[in-house]
């Protein structure tokens, strides 16, 4: 004896056949009919029913394949029309309704696909635009940040390369300020230096503070002869709208060791910049090299014998 009607081997076999037969029906119809037939069997087979009783219930239900055919084709026939003239009309009415539903579903599918395609296109355009946007460029005015450095700067030119050099002031902050121009059609946001690929690592030794980069807000033109930056803050992230410039200040703590007339500096600076939805590294070529020159004095972070 089986625990429930659905555990009866005959019922299980019937349900198995039913699953196979209903597989060719649309999912909703198949699922609904399966639920109805299963409920019918559960109601019709009494507890403790014999196999003969179960077999009789299943026989009265009819073969699953016949139920599937009945569902797929409907009951409308010419003979049925004779006694039920509305049947064909109803069937005809319901078929367009299904077609309408399918058309509507199809319309929704196309609309959704179109919307997704539009979004993908917009994203692609924005990403491409961001990736192809011109990098920031340095140019225009520039100056050493501290007056004592400006006063002692030596500008040289060799082989078409410009360089400005100041004595290293060991144990003090030094740095410069330049104009940074955004020639692209998109806002570019400087997030900070790309360490290991330019300033400020070239200027400094181990241990904090390392270097500070900031963009001016609000914008202020740089006066190479000794700019006045009263009321100007240098911040990160620094936002440069399209086709505008900002002053970028680069400061570092000079604790490197330079022996004799040794120099250290950079001709470019690498920045992490967000353009639209992407973040990239932009290597900014400086219009001139910014160098400090030895000899270093005082305490140094680097333990070199000649600096002890």
């Amino acid at each position, binding site marked *: 004896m089986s625990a429930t009607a659905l555990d009866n081997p005959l019922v299980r076999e019937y349900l198995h056949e039913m699953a196979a037969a209903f597989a060719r029906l649309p999912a909703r*119809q198949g699922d*609904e*009919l399966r*639920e*109805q*037939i299963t*409920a*019918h069997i*559960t*109601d*019709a087979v009494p507890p403790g029913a014999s196999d003969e009783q179960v077999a009789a219930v299943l026989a*009265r*239900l*009819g073969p699953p394949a*016949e*139920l599937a055919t*009945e*569902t797929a084709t*409907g*009951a409308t*026939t*010419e*003979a*049925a*029309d*004779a*006694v*039920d*003239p*509305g*049947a064909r009309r*109803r*069937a005809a*009415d*319901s078929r367009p*309704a299904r077609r309408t539903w399918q058309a509507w579903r199809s319309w929704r599918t196309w609309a959704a696909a179109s919307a997704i395609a539009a979004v993908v296109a917009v994203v692609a355009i924005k990403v491409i635009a961001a990736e192809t946007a011109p990098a920031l460029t340095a140019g225009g005015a520039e100056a050493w940040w501290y007056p004592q450095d400006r006063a002692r700067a030596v500008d040289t030119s060799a082989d078409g390369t410009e360089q400005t050099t100041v004595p290293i002031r060991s144990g003090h902050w030094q740095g410069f300020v330049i104009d940074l121009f955004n020639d692209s059609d998109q806002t570019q946001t400087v997030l900070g230096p790309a360490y290991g690929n330019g300033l400020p690592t070239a200027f400094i030794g181990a241990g904090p503070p390392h270097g500070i980069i900031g963009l001016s807000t609000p914008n202020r033109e740089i006066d190479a002869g000794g700019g006045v930056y009263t009321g100007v803050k240098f911040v990160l992230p620094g936002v440069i709208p399209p086709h505008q410039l900002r002053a970028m200040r680069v400061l570092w703590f000079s604790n490197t060791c330079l022996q004799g007339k040794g120099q250290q500096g950079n001709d470019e600076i690498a920045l992490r910049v967000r353009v639209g939805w992407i973040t990239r590294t932009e290597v900014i070529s400086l219009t001139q090299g910014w160098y400090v020159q030895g000899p270093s004095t005082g305490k140094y972070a680097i333990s070199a014998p000649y600096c002890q």
Partner: protein
Amino acid sequence: MAAAGGMTELRRGVLGPCVLALLEVRPRFGLELVRDLAAADGLLTSDGTVYPLLNRLRDGGLVTSEWRDEEGERARRYYSITTAGQKHLAEFRASWQQFTATVSHVLSSDPIPSGMADRGREQ
């Protein structure tokens, strides 16, 4: 064989209105409906065909269904006739009287009243 096939088709054709008539009395669940139909001898060829029919009637807006959880019983799907179903049933009843009369006349080889024949063709 041909006569048996014709009767099968006739049964299938009238089964929908019969289901509507039973549901007009009161809502019923599947097996209840099947048993009531089966009680009308010769109307139901197989119990299972009632369910595709119910689904078609529901898709046509003539029947609606809802789950009911009667006390002490497991939840069952109950079928009810809709207003559209009641209207359809009323139309069928009117047509059926006329149809059966026409068929009876033809089968009994009685002369067909002219007006009745015309009405039959209108269908």
